[in-house]
């Protein structure tokens, strides 16, 4: 079963309608479709693990010289 996209040219996003009885998703705007897709897309936890390892080995960033000058 394929979700059906009903295109409308409204500027504002409309709500997404879920037609559970027909087992079909219907989206009133492209943005609603993409938001639904984004909500269904989990963030892989592996990224955080890799970042954690990398940041642990990364020295803290220094403020630029002009900012350090004004902070005195």
């Amino acid at each position: 079963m394929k979700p059906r996209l009903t295109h409308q040219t409204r500027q504002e996003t409309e709500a997404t309608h879920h037609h559970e009885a027909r087992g079909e998703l219907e989206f009133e705007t492209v943005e609603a479709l993409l938001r639904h897709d984004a909500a269904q897309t989990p963030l892989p936890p592996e990224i955080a693990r890799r970042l954690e390892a990398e940041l642990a080995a990364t020295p803290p960033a220094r403020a630029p010289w002009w900012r350090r000058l004004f902070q005195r």
Partner: protein
Amino acid sequence: MALPPPAPPPPLPPTAPQGVGLDFAALYEAHARAIYYLALRLLGDSGRAEDAVHDVFLKAYRAQAGFRHAAEVRTWLYRIALNHCQNLLGSWQQRNIHPTATDELLERAGSGGESPLRACETRELGERIRQALDEIAPAYRILLLLVADEELGYDAIASLTSQTPDAVRGKLHRARKAFAAAFARTA
């Protein structure tokens, strides 16, 4: 069709060393998912999107000392992500590398958390969106992905895409039409 429960939040990277003003763990928690989705749909491959998000946050971490707080953090991260993804796409184009949907499908099949049916349905919708986005002009693709983020205003999108808010609104109308037509063809 019932919606699946939201995915559990990922573990957070450690809080960045203090002194430059950004709480990196909070920043990651608030924005990583949006950045990942942008990268996934721009690059068309989950493995490459993972690498891109990792690189984007690493760049953000290293560049945070130069971050101007006048700009929204989310817009700043989007700018880094867009530049990074566009550079990757440019270099792949030069080397004729095309991520394959099949690789991504196999990769995801191994990740638990969803029933096979739900995975299949989610996969199908995501694949159709990927195909439709691939068919439309890159400028439209970026515009739609940015506008889909409710936390980004037209001014931020205009700034990210180097055009006026009015131009964004005008192009958005055409982008929606192009996407809808392309999406219909994937059915």
